[in-house]
């Protein structure tokens, strides 16, 4: 299980990465992250929305209301600025994992 601190740090990268594939609404974002991480990363409502609003303010993503089968949902789409941010975020996390492998002698599972 991944610690909470590390989860917070991965949150932005996780959200941007799933939105890179397709626009999703809030609940779908949390489900997709949970499924893709095999349950290691779980975003509750309380964790997800403040972060979504923050990255929306930074214009990394844009939320737009859409009518879906279950009603009106706010769908988030990755913006060019967010796509651009993915590159350094991924590089930072790759650096961190390399460093941790060296320091803690942790190998990929």
């Amino acid at each position, binding site marked *: 299980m991944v610690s909470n601190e590390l989860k917070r740090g991965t949150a932005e990268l996780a959200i941007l990465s799933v939105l890179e594939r397709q626009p999703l*609404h*809030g*609940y*779908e974002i*949390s*489900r997709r992250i949970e499924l893709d991480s095999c349950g290691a990363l779980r975003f*509750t*409502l*309380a964790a*997800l*929305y*403040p*972060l979504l*609003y*923050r990255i929306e*303010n930074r214009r990394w993503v844009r*939320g737009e*209301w859409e009518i879906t089968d*279950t*009603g*009106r*949902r*706010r769908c988030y789409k990755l913006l060019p600025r967010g796509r651009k941010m993915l590159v350094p975020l991924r590089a930072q996390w790759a650096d961190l994992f390399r460093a941790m492998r060296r320091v803690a002698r942790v190998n990929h599972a």
Partner: protein
Amino acid sequence: MPDWLAYVNGHLGRLPLSETESSQVREELAAHLEDAYLSLLAQGFSETNAARLVCDQVPSWQQLHRDILAAKSEAFMQNRVSQLWVPGLVTLTGSAALLAVFEFAGWRPMVIPPHGPYSFVIYFPWLFCLPLFGALGAYLSLRARAHGLAVHCAALFPALVMAASLFAILLVALVLTDRRPLGVVAAGFGVFMLNWFLLPGFFLLLGDLLLQLVMKRRLASN
């Protein structure tokens, strides 16, 4: 099915946001809870258990309230920069630079009366150019989706800065300098305020209002 919007309204408390923004946040959170609830039902959970698990997604509504406001206030700060500070500084820099150009070109101000302890120093050509800067400040602010007071503040920024500076100088003068009669200080302050706040402010506001009028008319005609 539980009324998730009523549940959110009952727990989240009043958000100090605009009516639209606040209702959108509530609707979005309610939609998330509804989706989570339906998903749990589809997985075979009973209605009671599904509702309990969904409610557990928010351990503290007060904390969520604070977190949402913190996220939204970050936007407020960003907006304040683009809607007020940047247009205001552009207006201030432009008007100050123009005054310096006039000075450099040798255009002398009109001094009324020419001799005396309190004279009005009026740069007419500069004052007549100020509506352009007022309009520029208002335009930049409006372009950043500002409205109301923020637009006027951006347009009047040079006059407001001058007024604030004059108040600061007045306070320092009252504290530090030798005690002059209050009437003398007040008269000097009044003359400075007229020269550097009221007159420039009037011309800047003129440009601001004219621009807003033109933009409103254009919008109406479109």
